[in-house]
């Protein structure tokens, strides 16, 4: 553009990102690195589940009841074709876990996206407009927070299951779960966003924007929201982990994903009846996957919170 900008001096976007404070703190934090690697491995394996899985766990015709409850390959009586053994219906557990984790992660991300949209909108309006609007929105949030997420979800899912019958319910279970977990947890976002907006609103650039004659919507969305993203990032990671747990709990209680289309929670639940008859793997292996998945997400969230919190920033 100009003689002052020397293309050889200009660092590329990639190297800029690599040299940023955030990337540096990430490289110096082995817990975060390991967590991200594990999460990436789980994420991509589930993303490409149809290519990796040796069997299709959604096709009941491929199950052989004669091959049910085969222990994992490394223990006595295990068979090489079923790495993690089979469940009570003769379904390959490894394939079921791959597909199930995929459902869990999808529900986790989609529910959090819904929470974020609802919560950020409410929080922005409450924080920026203030006064009576703020009081009403936040009281609604308080009331909703005083019901536990699981309680709301159980009541809602139980009623829909009864009204539509389990046939229809099972067909739309995945969307029901996204909606119910999304709606039940929006106040978490609304509160966080509102608190940040209250702090940002007092800064002079907001006054300057009002002095420039910008309308309230533009100031909220284009000026305040981009300055409030770091707490939103932090809360999102924690919320994804929470949503995955909520989904697993609901499925475990029989209100989530049906056995024909199992998520991690339904797998744990289906194996639970056999845990004392010796078939420990049907419950334990999906359980371990769930714990690892939630743990790495939470550890990443911890790291992100430390990096983005200027009070904890150590230069």
């Amino acid at each position, binding site marked *: 553009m100009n003689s002052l900008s020397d293309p050889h001096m200009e660092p590329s976007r990639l190297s800029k990102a690599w040299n940023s404070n955030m990337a540096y703190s990430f490289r110096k934090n082995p817990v975060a690195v390991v967590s991200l690697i594990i999460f990436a491995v789980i994420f991509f394996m589930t993303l490409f589940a149809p290519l990796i899985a040796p069997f299709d766990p959604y096709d009941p015709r491929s199950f052989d009841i004669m091959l049910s409850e085969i222990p994992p390959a490394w223990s006595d009586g295990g068979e090489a074709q079923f790495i993690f053994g089979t469940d009570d219906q003769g379904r390959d557990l490894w394939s079921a876990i791959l597909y199930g984790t995929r459902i869990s992660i999808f529900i986790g991300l989609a529910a959090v996206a819904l929470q974020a949209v609802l919560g950020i909108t409410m929080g922005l309006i409450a924080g920026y407009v203030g006064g009576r609007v703020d009081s009403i929105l936040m009281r609604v949030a308080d009331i909703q927070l005083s019901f536990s997420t699981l309680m709301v979800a159980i009541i809602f899912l139980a009623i829909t299951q009864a009204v539509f019958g389990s046939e229809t319910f099972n067909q739309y279970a995945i969307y029901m779960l996204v909606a119910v977990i999304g709606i039940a947890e929006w106040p978490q976002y609304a509160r966080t966003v509102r608190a940040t907006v209250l702090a940002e609103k007092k800064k*002079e650039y907001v006054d*300057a924007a009002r002095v420039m004659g*910008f309308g309230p919507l533009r100031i909220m969305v284009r000026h305040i929201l981009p300055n409030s993203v770091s707490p939103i990032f932090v809360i999102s990671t924690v919320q994804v982990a929470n949503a995955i747990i909520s989904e697993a709990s609901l499925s475990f209680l029989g209100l989530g994903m049906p056995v024909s289309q199992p998520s991690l929670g339904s797998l744990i639940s289906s194996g639970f009846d056999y845990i004392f008859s010796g078939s420990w793997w049907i419950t334990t292996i999906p359980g371990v996957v769930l714990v690892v998945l939630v743990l790495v997400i939470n550890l990443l969230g911890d790291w992100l919170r430390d990096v983005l919190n200027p009070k904890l920033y150590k230069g």
Partner: protein
Amino acid sequence: MSLLSVRDLVVKFAMRNNTVTALNKISFDLARGERIGIVGESGAGKSITGFSILNLLSKPGYIDSGSITFDGEDITQMTDPQLRDIRGNRIAMIFQDPMVTLNPVLTIGQQMVETLQAHRRLSKSDAEQIAIAKLREVYIPAPEERLAQYPHELSGGMRQRIIIAIALLLDPQLIIADEPTTALDVTIQADIMELLLELCQSNKVSLILITHDLGVVSQMTERTLVVYAGRIIEAGPTREIINDPQHPYSQGLINALPQQTPRGEKLKQIPGAMPALSAVPDGCAFNPRCSFATDTCRKTVPEVTRIDHLEVACHEVRRHHETEEVAE
């Protein structure tokens, strides 16, 4: 007709139990192209005057009574869309701290284009051309490259120049500058003030300069208002106020300047502090700190008296003036 005419403006703050009067019957006029200074201590109501003119007082402050006529229209009676059309477009405001006035997550170019597009139908490239021209006017080197930069990549003086460029983007008729150089380095202060003066003169823009720096006021403005505890206590041509202030408070301010005290002597200062707005004394607000205060000063609020070119609100000055006239 004057560009801006403020009449008996009363601004109040609704506190939990009572209301506090922040501005008490402020009246002044501003001609087209004229530059006035509003001087006073912290908390005297200088900044509130600036915000009232844009009708941007935030809660719990509100305009209680009085009128603000800008170019023939009363700002206090305007609807929100009408106000938005005036803000930024016809009246621009420059704030104290350039470090926090620009939005940290938007580039300079985005902020300038956004301001232009909020008020005019312009394509992005046309808006950028105007932005570059304005940046050049405030002597920003390589303005094309600045557009892609974020505020944190620029120095304080550079940012204040950019803020001035943004204020000038839509060719406003009036700029309100609220302590525009207080947060800057002393060496840069003079540069910025000179730039602001030059731009106001060449673009024929009126200026309201809010400051506590009498030196700046004397260089920049034609007329000065001295504000104390929400009232204008003295107003008139800047030169007269600096050279021959009438009100004891203005005299105190001038005498407190370090240049007024010979080397080695203690600096003169006005004893006491300005009262809190919730505890303004009866009568003249300045009476507890005034060495000329009489019983009248403690009981009744002084009326504004015209003495030559100055308007002064002080019982003693008035009495003195009247006896002089009788003697003549």
